[in-house]
């Protein structure tokens, strides 16, 4: 069975500082990893994904994520946080290119960026 852990319920960062939202995963095969963001009273929006290739993946709104196979991690990063980045962030994983296309999600991390 596949699983995702987001160890921090909330991350606080000052505007202009770098931010990291942590994610670790467990799958039986190759991991296919995603980050989504949810703004208040909205559905989830796709940020970025890792399928194969370069371990550093760039996504929307200046976010990037680093895939680390040995540490089974896929941390989300941004060099300079904005107040508008404040939202709920979800990491998700699939372990197979076929069959069930549903994702397994982490519990979510609330990012609070202070002005």
């Amino acid at each position: 069975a596949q699983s995702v852990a987001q160890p921090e319920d909330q991350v606080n960062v000052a505007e202009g500082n770098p931010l990291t939202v942590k994610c670790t995963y467990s799958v039986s095969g190759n991991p296919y990893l995603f980050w989504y963001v949810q703004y208040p009273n909205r559905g989830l929006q796709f940020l970025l994904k890792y399928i194969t290739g370069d371990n550093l993946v760039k996504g929307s709104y200046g976010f990037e994520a680093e895939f680390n196979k040995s540490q089974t991690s896929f941390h989300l990063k941004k060099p300079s946080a904005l107040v508008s980045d404040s939202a709920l962030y979800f990491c998700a994983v699939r372990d197979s290119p076929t069959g069930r296309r549903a994702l397994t999600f982490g519990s979510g991390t609330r990012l609070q960026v202070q002005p």
Partner: protein
Amino acid sequence: DVKVTQSSRYLVKRTGEKVFLECVQDMDHENMFWYRQDPGLGLRLIYFSYDVKMKEKGDIPEGYSVSREKKERFSLILESASTNQTSMYLCASISSGTWNEQYFGPGTRLTVT
């Protein structure tokens, strides 16, 4: 742009009522999903469908059923609503391209009293 719409943003129902949540996508996606979102638990898969009239149970199907009579529409049914089904319900769809991301609707916040 892909659009996934859900019939209601907010819904209040009484215990024992039959509840229908509807989801429509406009991109001809084969696969559709229903998740529920609860604080501290993330999103959990209730049911999914990979084709018209085809459905499979997800991780928490108890108390729910689904219907997919047309490709663009996927309905979630609570046969007899209970207070523990108070939650945010999110619909998603994805094409059959292997590694495409899922597209989500805005969610329906259901309260069962």
